[in-house]
């Protein structure tokens, strides 16, 4: 019953706790003269939206949000970024385009590597916001995206609930050392601590190649058959965990909670092999990235936007399934 109640709540995007950042205004920002003139002349602004890996699954959805933002706000918005999570390539591209950009929205490959570049762009009088992945090391003006620690907490809570408060959980991630993974893992572990009957047995680093992800899960489950829950921290080990459960006929016996709405994940939620998945509304993030900068340049105060978490289970997954 408790699970059913939780599942009903899952129908909508749940806003997370608001960020502490206060509103910022362009009048308090040393905007570059060329941008001031452009805003005053009413010419379309050139906004650049840099994503940490334009070849990953979410890039098309974020790009669609950027295009919508550009159309709604009547600006030129370019979706840029490296193929593969290459921090150097992202830095080089931003440095090359700095003279042309009237605003930069960025999701960093690495907080440490991109932090100084963001501050350099700000110092040149160009406003910078972060989206999707925040960069707390920088002086960015605002952030549009999901609070990763909080989304981890939501995933942990879901796992605790579907396991009825007892069992052994294995956490899987395609990059255990990445900041987003560490943040989500922190939230997951915090939430699972509130269930005394649940033990986190390990964090499995699967790598990002689909074959390797599946093989790592397969080996780990054989190594520890007492695992009753697999909690994936991202898009890509979620369907692999669900597929392993389905193929090994462990549906219901081993619970899976994961992230995002890949086609395969949606189908595995429908078949009951994945109990719940958390969406991070990538299109909304792309839209907000552009919109925040345009609002800021047009003199409106802006502050961080929480794009929330969408929790999907068998009860509401049909809303997002392809017809």
């Amino acid at each position: 019953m408790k699970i059913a109640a939780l599942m009903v709540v899952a129908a909508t995007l749940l806003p997370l706790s608001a960020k502490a950042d206060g509103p910022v205004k362009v009048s308090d920002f040393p905007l570059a003269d060329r941008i001031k003139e452009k805003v005053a002349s009413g010419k379309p602004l050139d906004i650049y939206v840099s994503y940490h890996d334009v070849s990953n699954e979410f890039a098309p959805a974020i790009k669609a949000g950027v295009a919508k933002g550009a159309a709604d706000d009547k600006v030129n918005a370019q979706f840029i970024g490296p193929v593969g999570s290459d921090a150097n390539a992202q830095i080089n591209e931003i440095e090359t385009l700095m003279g042309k950009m009237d605003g930069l929205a960025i999701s960093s490959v690495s907080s440490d590597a991109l932090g100084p570049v963001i501050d350099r762009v700000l110092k040149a009088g160009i406003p910078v916001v972060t989206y999707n992945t925040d960069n707390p090391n920088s002086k960015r003006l605002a952030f549009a995206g999901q609070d990763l620690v909080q989304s981890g907490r939501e995933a942990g809570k879901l796992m605790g609930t579907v396991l009825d408060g007892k069992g052994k959980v294995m956490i899987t991630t395609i990059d255990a050392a990445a900041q987003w993974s560490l943040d989500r893992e922190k939230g997951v572990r915090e939430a699972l601590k509130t269930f005394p009957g649940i033990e986190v047995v390990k964090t499995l680093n699967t790598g990002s190649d689909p074959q390797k992800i599946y093989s790592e899960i397969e080996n780990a489950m054989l190594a520890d058959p007492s695992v009753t829950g697999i909690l994936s921290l991202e898009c890509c080990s979620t369907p692999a965990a669900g597929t392993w459960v389905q193929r090994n006929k462990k549906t219901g016996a081993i619970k899976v909670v994961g992230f995002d709405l890949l086609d395969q994940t949606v189908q595995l939620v429908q078949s009951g092999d994945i109990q719940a998945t958390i969406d991070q509304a990538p299109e909304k993030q792309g839209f907000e990235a552009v919109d925040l900068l345009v609002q800021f340049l047009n003199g409106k105060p802006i502050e961080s936007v929480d794009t929330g978490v969408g929790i999907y289970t068998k009860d509401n997954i049909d809303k997002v399934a392809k017809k």
Partner: protein
Amino acid sequence: MVDVVRSGARAPTRGSFSLSQLLWAREAGVFLALLALCLFLTFATGGFLTSLNLLNVGRQISLLGIMAVGMTFVLIAGEVDLSVGSTYAFCGLASGMLICAGWPLFAAVGLGVVAGCVIGLINGLLSTYGRLPSLIATLGMLSMVRGAALILTNGQPVTVNVRNGASESVLNAFEFMGQGYLFGVIPMQLVFFVIVAAIAWFILSMTNFGFRIFAVGGSAKAARVSGIHVSAVKIWAFILMGALAAFAGILSLAFLPSGQAGRTGLGLELDVIAATIVGGASLSGGEGTILGTILGVLIIGVMRNGLVLMGVSPFVQEFMIGFVIVVAVGIDKWSTRRSA
């Protein structure tokens, strides 16, 4: 003629093996290392020596193995192919898209393999008539083919299922290729690996083409003087590599059955080259055997499996695998110098 041009190259010998030949073969060191690793894991972990785990290992190494067989030809010919991970992704995803577009299985898989052959042909032409070092030519192709896969799929995952347009009968046959079991026990991927390895062994050990590859890799100049068309032999080695990388990519998609151009097979070329080198093939050409490559692939596969079974941290796993590659190749080179 053959004996003359093979000077410097170490091809497997024709005819029967005696026990002493087997023990002193260059693969013996790799085999003993594998045996020691298996014995250690049997005692160190509870789950290693079970039929389920061994069949899992067999399946997990199969795709790497199929590609490493292709790489053996390329390395023996004195070249290297860095584009195999991208070829694996492009051809697998292309075949998957064709199946979703309603193509019959044979045509979709066939076209995927042909695409792999074309990539191999381009690699071969660039490395021979184009006079580019294969390291550079295939590095360029690594990027171009990965880009082509991203353009083809628009960065979106390709999931092969009925909902996305695949016909049920084609899907069943496709999934059987990647997920099925022969006699309900042996994974089909492993069956394909064994077939590919057997054919490759036959080509390399029993045909003129096999001897020519060793000749070209051992000394291209001597081979040319002996009337061997060096460029043609190298191009064929690249085509074979392309076809096998494509076939492995298709099997990978059949197994999962979903892939994404930005992640599928990323960095796989290094695993393939490492496994082939651990098996005794030489980056300077003229050396390598299919048996050695199989053992090399097994060492890497067993190592990965065993480290997970032992609960070793993923960061330590990466270190250990690199360490084993260095030690295995080091021992091989050291023993080769001593026996020379």
